[in-house]
Structures are given as structure tokens and as C-alpha cells.
């Protein structure tokens, strides 16, 4: 046995190791090459799954990757983070036939990993159209939009508020889903098409105003993501030891020294989405003894997929359902000591507290109750921002005819990388039609 020398193997080891050529060959043979395939319908970006699997089977790995990238230029990350068990793999006819879908996600990774090597970028920058587009936000939506626009020959300037590109891929998902700096390598892959100028640490709304961009460019795409964090307004949430889960994850993702991260012994996470799971599992991997997720509804209502829930449980995370936070109490030193929660029940669809309460000892509490749009970014614009999201039409155009938007920041945003990619791609098509007219 080879000695595993990693100090934090859970964090540094791929959740799903790459398939070997042999494994990919055997697995690809399981695909029936369905017609009008349910997996394609289930994929938010509509990747031609049967075709790319057939290409793998025929030893045409580059062609398989190209089939994927044609619909989803971030196919590499989606292969790692997509909840395939609720998307393509749930729809796979092998799931119907034998409860064992073709491992579409892992095959997609096998194909797309081909372009991780020293391989020429599979697309060419289009000949210069003379048009300039500003893409705000270098997350999945912005990257997909920028890449598609570049292939049409439009010059793209991409602004991002953070110091690194990638958005949530860089800052917001668990390390074990994107080991070996994959998020950054994928951004480099996308940008290698040419014609995209990336400017980091530029925040629209403070460093530059949206109105200026509208004046300066032929079109603007907003892929802002949700940079704000929902506040629970919980008594005690200002105590030392209370943190937003996204901030914890961002710190974790950006450190090179896991030893330096402070993680409590007894951790409680409030929420039921992927962020809650990512925070909980990584807290365990960093050494927390007791990690509990408290969610106010039942397992089926959790945004985290069943697979993700089980992943947490396998890693020793306790998931408690039908519990809502009431108050965070301090210990003698003035830091977090425990959290008080109340049981809930659903009364004709409405969630109500039952009055029964419990206390869970905790020295760390991560809030994972969702992100929100930092509306200040748009304050100087005419953009209508309904329900604290950017409102767009079916072509991803906002109320302003020169501004498009997509990804998590728009209303109806699905909080999925793959959905953001689709938004960015379709918005790019819409922009291209508009500025080429």
C-alpha cells in the first residue's frame, strides 16, 4: 500500500477520481445511444450525451470533448459539480432498466480532461466584428457568455470584483470537487480562445458604474452572481464564532495552509443547500468533532441532492430536520456557546414552530441560508430588479436594450453551475444577433 502523505486527504482527494481509459471504455459501452435521449432533455445545457459517449467508445476523446464544449464550455467543471443524480443520470434509461444509470458525469470528465493537457484550444476566435462587449462577472455565466462571443469575433472585456476569476467555482464549492486548482485551469482554458480581456478586482457599482459601461460598450452582460448573504436576523448572530458558510468556504478554498484555518470542535450549520453540505463536510475534513446541519424542513425539501446528503452523512455529519434557529447563546468568554432551535412542522404547507426547543452545544456556527443580489451594483441603472433579482426576457435581455443578464443573479436562476452556463451561452447568442443586426 502506498502511504497517503496528504495531511487532509479528504480535502485534497477527488471526490470522484478520474476514470481510466479502460473504465471509460467499459462504461461507455453501457450507453444505448438513445434517440431524442432523456439525458439530453434533462441537461440544462442540452449536451448531446449519446454522441459524446459514442465518441469515447470509438476512441475519439477529443471529438467527445468538443461535443460537450459545443453546448457547455465549462463541461469540465459541470462534470465535477453537477448533481447528475437529479439531472442526466436520473433520466438515463439504464436507471429505469436496472437502477444503474450510465456514469454520464464521469464520462464527461474523462472526455473533457483531454483538454487539460497540452492540447490546442478546440475553438477559434472569430474574425474581428468590430464590436465590444463587456461581461460583468467571471463566473460560469460570464465565462460561457464571453467564450461564445469571442468565437463570433466580438472583443470581450470581462470584469470581476474578486481578485481571481471563476466566481463560485473558485470561491464557493468544496475543494474535493475541484482539486489541483481545476477551477483556475478551466478559466485559463476558456480564455485561451483569445479575444477576452480579463480585469480582476473591478467592482461594478463602485469602481465603475454600469451606466459608463453601457456608454462604452456595444453590449453589457451581467453575470454578477449573488454576492450578498441572506441575514437571518438571529439574536446572537454577531457573536464571535458565527460566520457565513460561503465565507468559510471561500477562506478554505483560498488558503494554501489548511493548518492555519480555525475550525471549531462543535459546528452547527444552518441551511439545507449545497453550501450547507460543502461547509459541513469540509469542517469534518478539517477536524471538527461534531458537525450538525439543522434544516427547517424535511430531507426531500433540501436543495442539496440526496447524494449530497448521503455524502455528508458518510463523512459523519448529522443532519437534523424540522429545526429552525431561535437564538445563539454565548459562553462564559463571550463567544458562541450553543444554539437554541425550535422544532417545526408543516401545517397545510406553511411552516410553523411547534414551541418545542432544543439546545445544541456549538463553538462555531455557519449560516448557509442563501445568497442575495447586491442591488447596489445596479443602483445607477434603469434595470428593473424584481424580487431582488435582475429581470430578463426569454432572450436574457433586461429592461435596458443594451444589457443582458444570466446566472444566479436573474430571477429564476437555478443556483446551478450548468444552468448559469446555459444562461451565458444563450445570452451570448442573443447579444450576437442584436449587435450583428
Amino acid at each position, binding site marked *: 500500500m502506498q502511504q497517503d502523505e496528504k495531511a487532509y486527504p479528504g480535502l485534497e482527494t477527488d471526490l470522484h477520481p478520474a476514470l481510466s481509459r479502460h473504465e471509460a471504455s*467499459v462504461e*461507455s*459501452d453501457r450507453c*444505448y445511444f438513445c*434517440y*431524442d*435521449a432523456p439525458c439530453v432533455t434533462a441537461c440544462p445545457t442540452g449536451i448531446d450525451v449519446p454522441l459524446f459517449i459514442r465518441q469515447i467508445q470509438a476512441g475519439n476523446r477529443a471529438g467527445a470533448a468538443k461535443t460537450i464544449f459545443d453546448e457547455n464550455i465549462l463541461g469540465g467543471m459541470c462534470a465535477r459539480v453537477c448533481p447528475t443524480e437529479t439531472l442526466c443520470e436520473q433520466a438515463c434509461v439504464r436507471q429505469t432498466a436496472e437502477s444503474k444509470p450510465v456514469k454520464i458525469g464521469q464520462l464527461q470528465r474523462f472526455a473533457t480532461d483531454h483538454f487539460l493537457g497540452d492540447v490546442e484550444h478546440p475553438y477559434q476566435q472569430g474574425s474581428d466584428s468590430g464590436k465590444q462587449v463587456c461581461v460583468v462577472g467571471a463566473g460560469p455565466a460570464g465565462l460561457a457568455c464571453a467564450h461564445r462571443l469571442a468565437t463570433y469575433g466580438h472583443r470581450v472585456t470581462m470584469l470581476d470584483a474578486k481578485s481571481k476569476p471563476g466566481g463560485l467555482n473558485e470561491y464557493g464549492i468544496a475543494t474535493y470537487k475541484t482539486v489541483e486548482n481545476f477551477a483556475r485551469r478551466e478559466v485559463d482554458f476558456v480564455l485561451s480562445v483569445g479575444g477576452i480581456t480579463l480585469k480582476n478586482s473591478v467592482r461594478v457599482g463602485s469602481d465603475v458604474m454600469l451606466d459608463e459601461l453601457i456608454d462604452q460598450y456595444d453590449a453589457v452582460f451581467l453575470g454578477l452572481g449573488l454576492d450578498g448573504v441572506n441575514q437571518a436576523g438571529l439574536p446572537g448572530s454577531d457573536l464571535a464564532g458565527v460566520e457565513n458558510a460561503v465565507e468559510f468556504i471561500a477562506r478554505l478554498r483560498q488558503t494554501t495552509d489548511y493548518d492555519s484555518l480555525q475550525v471549531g470542535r462543535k459546528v452547527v450549520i444552518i441551511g439545507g443547500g449545497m453550501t450547507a453540505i460543502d461547509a459541513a463536510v469540509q469542517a469534518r475534513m478539517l477536524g471538527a468533532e461534531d458537525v450538525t446541519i439543522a434544516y427547517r424542513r424535511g430531507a426531500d425539501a433540501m436543495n442539496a441532492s440526496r447524494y449530497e446528503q448521503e455524502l455528508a452523512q458518510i463523512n459523519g455529519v448529522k443532519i437534523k430536520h424540522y429545526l429552525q434557529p431561535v437564538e445563539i447563546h454565548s459562553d462564559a468568554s463571550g463567544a458562541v456557546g450553543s444554539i437554541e432551535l425550535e422544532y417545526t412542522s408543516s401545517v397545510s404547507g406553511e411552516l410553523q414552530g411547534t414551541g418545542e426547543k432544543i439546545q445544541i452545544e456549538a463553538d462555531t456556527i455557519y449560516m448557509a441560508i442563501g445568497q442575495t443580489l447586491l442591488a447596489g451594483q445596479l443602483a445607477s441603472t434603469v434595470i428593473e430588479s424584481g424580487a431582488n433579482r435582475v429581470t430578463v426576457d426569454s432572450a436574457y435581455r433586461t429592461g435596458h436594450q443594451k444589457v443582458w443578464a444570466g446566472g444566479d443573479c436573474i430571477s429564476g436562476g437555478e443556483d446551478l453551475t450548468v444552468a448559469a452556463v446555459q444562461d451565458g451561452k444563450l445570452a451570448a447568442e442573443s447579444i450576437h444577433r442584436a449587435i450583428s443586426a
Partner: protein
Amino acid sequence: MADLSNNFVGIKSPNPFWLASAPPTDKAFNVNRAFEAGWGGVVWKTLGEDPPIVNVNGPRYGAVHSADRRLIGLNNIELITDRPLEVNLAEIRQVKRDWPDRAMVVSLMVPCEEKNWKGILKRVEDTGADGVELNFGCPHGMSERGMGAAVGQVPEYIEMVTRWCKETTDLPVIVKLTPNITDIRFPARAAKAGGADAVSLINTVSSIVSVDLDTMAPQPTIDGKGSHGGYCGPAVKPIALNMVADIARDAETADIPISGIGGVTTWRDAAEFMALGAGNVQVCTAAMTYGFRVVDEMISGLNNWMDEKGHATLDSVVGKATPNVTDWQYLNLNYVTKARIDQDKCIQCGRCHVVCEDTSHQAITLKVDGKRHFEVIDEECVGCNLCVSVCPVEDCITMEELTTGVDPRTENDIRREYANWTTHANNPMSGS
């Protein structure tokens, strides 16, 4: 328990599974292991005259794989035994002595001269072997020297050599036929005319299995060049079955015993060969793919099936399907079938629809009432069976005979009486 014991032209073996003349039967070591594993008999790898032939020292085999590398077809450029004749004869003598209840047939190939054949036959008789098989089949290497398939492709030579052998020995003479001809009945008739006790078929099919696109050479590649080989394994079974049936139902050869060869991999393959008229079967590729223990499955599977069907002995199986093989012109044109899709078994892959839509008769729906739903449109279905063939789920699509009413496609009444092409109105030769 059914009785699997086999009597093939007087050669007795405890079961009908023989190993064909091939690498698995080249040496006592291998044959002893085969008999330990339970094989009913062997046809010893083809003996020739000294000095022994030589084999290439590079790769001898090429393969056709399914995507997960199951061996579908195997191709070889190996020649007959490359060991001295006396070494083989001594081993044959010893093995037969050690395994008296197993069939020991010796395959032979010598130049097409009377004295050569008569000479070697006498030496084989001395070993106590149960019979000989004349190798008129190998399509590669030896055929360039006027032996193997070069003989099997000329019925006159088959008859001549067979006659020499029958004049020389009292051992049963089995003539092994090559499939690399246009009509298998002619070599079979020639073997019979020469006095053969039986024919065995098929030998391997001339083949190039693949081309290495880097070196631009056929595989297996010997120092940059390749030569055609002999193809065998599951892929050739349909060709072999047809040839066995052709001989079994030909008036001139209907009574000649047949040893069936070609892609026998499971008991079911063996039962199919026997149903079409083979008195026993010979196996090579399955053993060369999985080892000798595959015979366990063959024996138990054949046994269980025979018990289930009430066949006490092999005689009640052999040739049972032969009368049902006929010429196309005698097929009943009044027999009407339609495909039926079992909706509970359907997994919604859509392949039946797309192949029917793209390549056939547009007779299967994709959507019904806006929902993905595959259903046969009887007005278009010609009953071709393509959907059944491509469906990944067994018994999900079946063919159902229409016995009453009207065929919605032709709008003709369903008629129960037999009527074939010979009397059909569209047949210019029918005279009606």
C-alpha cells in the same frame, strides 16, 4: 438426467463436446487438461510430414472485440503442428491409453499424393486413435503449398483424397470442409462420393480482422506485413449454421453425419448446431477465450435443457430443426405479424422508433398525446422484426401473429391457408 453420451460414426464419447483441431489440442499436456476438465473428445491438432512446418515468431492472432473487449471473433495465421510427427504420435498413443473413454480423432494434412496420405494413415492407426479428420480447410499458409483449403476448394480433389484414405484404413474418415467456397453442398457431395464417413465444418473463414492505422499494416503484423488468416469464434456461427443446414437438407448428403464447428460458445450454440443436423460439435475459440472449464456450462446447460424438453438422448435432438429449414420461395406469404411493445418493459430508449423511422417503415410512434411513447402503427408495420432486433430489453418487443380480421397495412383479409411465392400472382413463373 438426460444421456449426453455420443456415438459419432462409431466413435464414442461421454458427451458431444469435442475440442476442434487447433492449438488447444497440439500437445498431451493440453489434451490431458482438457480431458480432466470433462471434454468428450479431441481432434488432435493437424499432423503433417517431417520436417515439421515452422510458425511465425511474431503474433499469430488478431481479434475483433465488442466495446468492452469481449472476444467476438478471432483470426489466426498459425499453421499445423510444428512438432515432429513421432512426438505427436507417441503422445496420442499415450493419451488414448490414459483416457480410453474419450474420443481421439487425429487431424491430417499432407501433400496431395496417394503415397503421402497412405503413409501417414498407417502410422496413425498404430496409435490406437478412434478416427481421422482430413484437414481440407485451413485457408492460410498451407493452402499456398497446395494443401488445406486448396484441396477443399476443389471437389474433385476432396473425392480423390477421401477415396485414397478410405481404401487404406478402417478408421472412420471425417472430412473437414472449408467455408471459403460459394456452395458448401459441392464439397460435401464430393466427400460423400469419396466414401467419407462424415464431414465436419466449418473450418476458418479467410479474413483480415483489422488494420493498424499507425503502421498501415493488417493485424497481426509481422515486421510490418500481414497475411490473411482464418476467422473463427462467435462471429462465424451464423455462417456455420447455414452451411450445416445446407448439407443436412441436401438430398445427396442428407444422410452423412456432420460434426458442427463454428463459434460454439454455450450449450445453446451446441443445441442449435445439433438441431440443424450436427451429430456433435467441436469447440475451439470458446476454450481459447476462457479456458477448458467452459465445458462445465455446456454439459450442464445441455442437460438441463434436454430434461426440460424431455429429450432423453442426443438422437432426439439431432436434426429436429432440419425439416423447418426451407427455401424462401416456400415461406407462407399469408402469415402476418405485427410488432408489439410491452409498455411495462419499455425503458424509453427510442431506438425502435428511430430505426423504423430512419431506415424502415415509419411504424413506431415517438410521442402520443405529446408524451414520449413508443407504439406500433399497425397500418405501417410490415412485421420486419428490426425493432425486436435492436431493442435492448429482452422480450420487450415481440412479434404477434394476426389470425383473424384484416391486415391494416394491406387491407387484405387474414387468410389462414398456406400460400407461397411459387403460386403468387406477382410471380411471372407461377403460371397463374
